[in-house]
């Protein structure tokens, strides 16, 4: 191979991996192979992390919707009065997100500027980071003191701490 004439009795002395051009070719191919594996692995791992984060986002959203006594006046209707009075710490202690995740919640009345926020603030770096933020936005019914119902929005943000 490669124009060199290895005599019959020298076969096996130089050996396959001592043949420099072939060795270089193998190194290049192995490099390409490991690079392609790495490129496949990174997005798969990122996606797995993202799915775990999304699940945690849903979990927190479900907990918020389930807290009847704390947040609701009627079934499935969030009380503006309670949101107004609710101390942030109380909600934090009820809705734990686990050590790996941080979160915040926002309730907003669609027809007005009124909104209530709980939890941590997102920094600009966290918003722009690759792992990103899982966000769930859902319509909710909010009742005021006069028992009138208003269409509102619940937004849950979850990100890795």
């Amino acid at each position, binding site marked *: *191979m490669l124009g060199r004439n290895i005599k019959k009795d020298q076969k096996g002395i130089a050996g*396959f991996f001592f*043949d420099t051009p*072939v060795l270089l*070719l*193998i190194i290049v*191919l*192995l490099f390409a*192979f490991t690079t*392609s*594996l790495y490129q*496949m692995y990174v997005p*798969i791992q990122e*996606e797995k992390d*993202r*799915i775990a984060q*999304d699940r945690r*986002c*849903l979990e927190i*959203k479900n907990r918020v919707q389930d807290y009847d006594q704390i947040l609701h006046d009627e079934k*499935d*209707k969030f009380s503006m009065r309670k949101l107004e009075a609710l101390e942030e710490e109380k909600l934090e202690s009820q809705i734990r997100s686990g050590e790996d995740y941080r979160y915040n919640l926002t309730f907003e009345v*669609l027809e007005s500027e009124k909104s209530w926020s709980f939890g941590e603030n997102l920094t600009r770096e966290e918003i722009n980071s690759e792992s990103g933020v*899982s966000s*769930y*936005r*859902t*319509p*909710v*019914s909010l009742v005021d003191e006069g028992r009138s*119902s208003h*269409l509102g*929005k619940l937004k849950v943000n979850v990100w890795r701490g």
Partner: protein
Amino acid sequence: MVDAVLFGLIILMVSILVFQQFGGALNRERDLESSEFKYEAVHDIQKVALDTIISETGYVNLSESQPKRMRLINITVERAIKDYLYLDNLEQNKEKLEYDLSDLEKDIEQVYEKCAWDVSQYRFALESSYESSELFITNVEELDKEDLPPKRAASTTTLIIEGDRVDSTLFIWR
């Protein structure tokens, strides 16, 4: 030696193909567990939309000499859908009856538009039918119910009109 090189190359190519297939399988799984949350969101949107109260809506009875507007105060969207289907069916079965139900339809659409699009950024279609009447509402122009996209999520709620079960189905997609 040439055999060894060829053998090595074949192993590498086969390995790459296998790993690409493996990665593809994981990507398909990712699509199913999409981070868009649509399978969860469709139930929330449907539940809240049906319970939402329309402060004032109505319809016009055109079958009398003077058109008569019927006002409906503080009714839920669920009630509005039932009224629409009931009146539309009645109109089609009685020659002398004629209703203008466009306000009722517009107000139902506005609530779904707020819940599905303004809040959650989903395109939507609502489909419901009762005997000969049919209600199809969407925020996509010129979309027929046969043309709904395949990657959609749906939630069906059963309504009762005159003792009959009527399905109202909400579809959402990005």
